[in-house]
């Protein structure tokens, strides 16, 4: 019996506003505990919330970037439950009338695009942080009230790899918008997963398991892979499947049941009477839509058509907004006939350097003008391709121009025909046998002769030009 994996992901993103969702406390990581708090975000008696307009703007932008329909009328609801990191013992969230619905994004795991639906994106506030000690837990409320959005995917991801791709594409789109740090380590991006298995071809969904505590995209993929195995085993053995929440233990590489005696949670959602609803009209939506940058998937398609790039190459270049901007700047600045030359430089040597140094393309300490200059040296034959790669490395390290480094390294190739012909004469005279071999059809001999010229010129001769000249010389004579 074959089973199909069905995965849905819930991503929480912290919006990068200056202040919290419902009060003017500053959002600042690493500040001393309980130093970015006020009576409102502490939920002190008598306090009331007022929503941050920038948070609403950023949230709408995200919803638009994911092609969601923005609700004309939307409101906040209270989600009631008791926990010490929740000062009011309710979270201000959204229940039945979320900000936006029915969006999508594309993933490319099998090298063909797959449309992943997004059920909804809604507004919430974050809770505080707990530190657990032996007999006590300590609470820091700095994080309470930070504006969040929750992005819920349709349960249409069918493998841990697809889930991983969904997350990387989601992050790339959000980064383009500049609305969130998207940093799982800092906690500005969190992900929970829902996974179930069903017999292939079945319509009904299987028993759902909720997974939490994954701290990286890889962690999500690994946790889901583990679950697929675990659940497959259970199903094969006809063991009962219970709906439960499981925590990922990254160290041990297993999920552990969080079975609580509570049973189904009853959050007693009701519209928050302290907050007025929002009417979001078309002009407001269009104004925000106009502020959206070109998004990665659009940019990729444009690179492919404008610069004749392959999908593969285009995907690499658009993976970050800054990289894409840098790359496009270089491609546009490059005035040669075939843009592919520049593209190959970007995807080849530049990307290697970036990966080696663990930075982005645009963080490489090389400007587009300098790169174009370096390529120019190669194209004119002033330096060899091999030498250029070394120069690139040095340019990045030292910040010096190509010109300076080529001079310092004495790398200029000799392409001057007259000069070369002199050396060729000498070589031809000294290597009669090889000349004879070449004339009788042994092409290796040409390479040998070129090599000799290279030696005599201390490697400075332009091998291509030399080859051509030798051929001419020997064919003529």
């Amino acid at each position, binding site marked *: 019996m074959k089973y199909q994996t069905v995965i849905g992901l819930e991503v929480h993103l912290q919006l990068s*506003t*200056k*202040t919290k969702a419902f*009060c*003017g*406390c*500053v959002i600042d990581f690493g500040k*001393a*505990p*309980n*130093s*970015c*708090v*006020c*009576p409102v975000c*502490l939920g002190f008696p008598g306090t009331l919330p*007022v*929503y*941050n*307009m*920038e*948070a*609403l703007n950023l949230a709408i932008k995200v919803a638009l970037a994911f092609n969601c329909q923005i609700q004309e009328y939307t*409101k906040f609801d209270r989600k009631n439950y*008791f926990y*010490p990191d929740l000062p009011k013992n309710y979270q201000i969230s959204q229940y039945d009338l979320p900000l936006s619905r029915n969006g999508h994004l594309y993933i490319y795991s099998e090298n063909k695009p797959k449309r992943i639906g997004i059920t909804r994106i809604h507004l919430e506030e974050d809770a505080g942080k*707990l*530190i*657990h000690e*032996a*007999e*006590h*837990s*300590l*609470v*820091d*409320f700095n994080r309470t009230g930070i504006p969040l959005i929750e992005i819920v995917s349709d349960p249409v991801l069918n493998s841990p790899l697809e889930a991983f791709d969904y997350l990387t594409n989601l992050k790339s789109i959000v980064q383009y918008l500049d609305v969130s740090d998207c940093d799982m380590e800092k906690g500005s991006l969190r992900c929970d997963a829902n996974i179930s298995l069903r017999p292939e071809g079945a319509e009904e969904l299987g028993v759902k398991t909720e997974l939490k505590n994954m701290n990286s995209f890889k962690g999500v993929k690994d946790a889901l892979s583990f679950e697929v195995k675990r659940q497959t085993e259970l199903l094969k053995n006809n063991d009962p499947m219970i709906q439960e929440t499981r925590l990922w233990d990254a160290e041990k590489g297993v999920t552990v049941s*969080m079975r*609580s005696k509570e049973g189904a949670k*009853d959050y*007693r959602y009701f*519209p928050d*009477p302290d*907050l*007025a*609803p*929002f*009417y979001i009209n078309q002009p407001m939506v269009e104004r925000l839509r106009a502020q959206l940058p070109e998004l990665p998937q659009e940019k990729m398609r444009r690179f492919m058509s404008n610069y004749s790039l392959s999908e593969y190459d285009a995907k690499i270049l658009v993976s970050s907004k800054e990289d894409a901007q840098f790359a496009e700047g270089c491609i546009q600045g490059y005035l040669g006939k075939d843009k592919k030359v520049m593209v190959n430089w970007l995807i080849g040597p530049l990307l290697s350097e970036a990966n080696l140094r663990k930075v982005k393309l645009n963080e490489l300490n090389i400007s587009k003008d300098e790169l174009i200059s370096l390529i120019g040296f190669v194209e004119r034959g002033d330096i060899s391709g091999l030498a250029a790669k070394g120069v690139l490395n040095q340019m990045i390290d030292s910040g010096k121009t190509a010109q300076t480094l080529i001079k310092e390294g004495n790398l200029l190739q000799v392409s001057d025909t007259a000069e070369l012909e002199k050396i060729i004469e000498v070589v031809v005279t000294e290597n009669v046998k090889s000349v004879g071999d070449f004339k009788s059809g042994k092409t290796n001999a040409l390479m040998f002769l070129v090599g000799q010229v290279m030696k005599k010129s201390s490697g400075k001769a332009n091998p291509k030009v030399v080859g051509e000249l030798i051929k001419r010389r020997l064919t003529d004579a």
Partner: protein
Amino acid sequence: MSIDNETIKHVAHLARIELQPNELERLSGQLHDILGFIDKISDLNIENVAPASHILPISNVLREDKPHTSLTPERALENAPSKKGNFFSVPKIIE
């Protein structure tokens, strides 16, 4: 509509209030009366009536993303029944 003791206990748990057995008994009788009285609203035809979840015609209330002065940790913790350094302290959480 009646409300049985099991339901009251469940609701008390949702509300995190420990009820003594005699409280439960008393509450049961009182809630029975109150709910009986409240049930009167089930008579009404409310087919096409919109719920008054917000009584005022206010909407789109927003504030600017501008910082204000936060409390110092000392002020924030002034009323805390139990604290450790600059943290609020609560007893162990048993899952």
